[in-house]
């Protein structure tokens, strides 16, 4: 059984989020708006939790500029996310919104916030292992050591590095005797 209960706001409190500190009131508000825009493939987490918002600035004329970075280059949800980010900010009162997608601050799974990792676990997916110091690129040895998101057991085995979306791998838990998925480290 997959636990689909949403995380209560209290549970997420105290966990490090991805909204920068010390922002102006206006910027803080826009970041909070984006923190409500769900990732279309894992709607339990926001695009801010996911760490794909790399820059948010307000121009002199009040126009908002947002820079996104894709999780995987072939992510089919990217255009959709650009659109929903733009719509959310316009609805929040931004006079104009410019959304760009670049690779200049490339995404890695370490960009997912602590709060986001917790939400991924509650959604029923194992969060990605953090990159070990000195390890360039995804740590594929750690990929095979996923802890079961249901029972926490490490007695698991990776069945395939490719799952139902580009960012998930397939695993099996020998204690639950159930399959599960992991958000892949990148």
């Amino acid at each position, binding site marked *: 059984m997959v636990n689909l209960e949403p995380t209560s706001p209290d549970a997420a409190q105290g966990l490090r989020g991805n909204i920068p500190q010390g922002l102006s009131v206006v910027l803080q508000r826009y970041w909070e708006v984006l923190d409500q825009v769900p990732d279309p493939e894992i709607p339990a987490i926001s695009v801010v939790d996911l760490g794909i918002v790399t820059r948010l600035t307000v121009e002199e004329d009040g126009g908002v500029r947002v820079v996104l970075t*894709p999780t*995987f*280059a*072939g*992510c*089919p949800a990217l255009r959709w996310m650009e659109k929903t980010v733009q719509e959310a900010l316009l609805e929040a009162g931004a006079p104009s919104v410019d959304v760009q997608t*670049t*690779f*200049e*601050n*490339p*995404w*890695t799974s370490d960009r997912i916030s602590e709060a986001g990792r917790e939400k991924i676990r509650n959604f029923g997916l194992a969060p990605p292992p953090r990159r070990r110091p000195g390890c360039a*690129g*995804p740590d*594929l040895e750690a990929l095979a050591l996923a802890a079961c998101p249901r029972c926490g057991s490490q007695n698991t085995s990776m*069945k*395939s*590095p*490719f*799952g*139902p979306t*580009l960012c998930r791998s*397939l695993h099996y838990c020998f204690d639950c005797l159930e399959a599960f998925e992991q958000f*892949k480290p*990148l």
Partner: protein
Amino acid sequence: MTFSIPSNPLPRYLLQIADDQLVMGHRNSEWTGLGPILEEDIAFSSIAQDQVGHSLAFYEILHQTHGLDNPDQTAFNRPENGMLSSWLVEQTIGDYAFSLVRHWCYDQAVALRYESLAQIQDPNLQALAMKLRGEVKYHTFHAQTWMKSLLQGSEESRLRMLSALKEVWPLALGMFEAWPGETDLMQEPGSQGDPWYPGEKNLQNLWQTRAMESLASWGVEVEVLGLQRLEPVLGGRQGYHSEHLAPLLEEMTSVFRLDPQAEW
């Protein structure tokens, strides 16, 4: 439908990478629904999706920085002789052994190209190469796992893999075909001051050394198999292709051609 191949070495090189990824991605997507087991169906479909995504990222840079038409036009509105992909990627999928060996040969080469591109001075290309390199690590991991399993599996699986190796090898060597402008690009200093692009001969040697090491570790007697005596199949990097590319382009561009100016 006219297209002039970029005369500057860097955009030409990037176009070769992009075209390989686009064509390989389309071929690999043909396994969707046909994989020998569900996990492999998903794996080839995911790899295909990555590859088409990688081609898009390069077409975008070619458009933004090097004056080529937008990615849709560049990908889908070119004559066959404007495509710079290798013969390896355009071959039909064959049986699973052929596709798997091709995937192994191809993604090992892509990993080497991205490793080298990550040393370029241009910060955008450098960031892109480092990003894509991480994704390809999953491809090479997948290919290595299955190559090992099937080469060390039953008598039948081993024979079929060895036969596929002999078939794929000359095509794989063709990935490293010399191209005009190559020696100029080899002079370009990278982010550390040294040239970042080693040239096709050096890439091929590196690729071949790694491949031979892996094969030997799986008990393949490379000498007996005669891989070293096989000659490369050339032409792709000059725009000359086998009979398999035209039908692929025909199918791949059929939706685009319904309305070439459509906004997607």
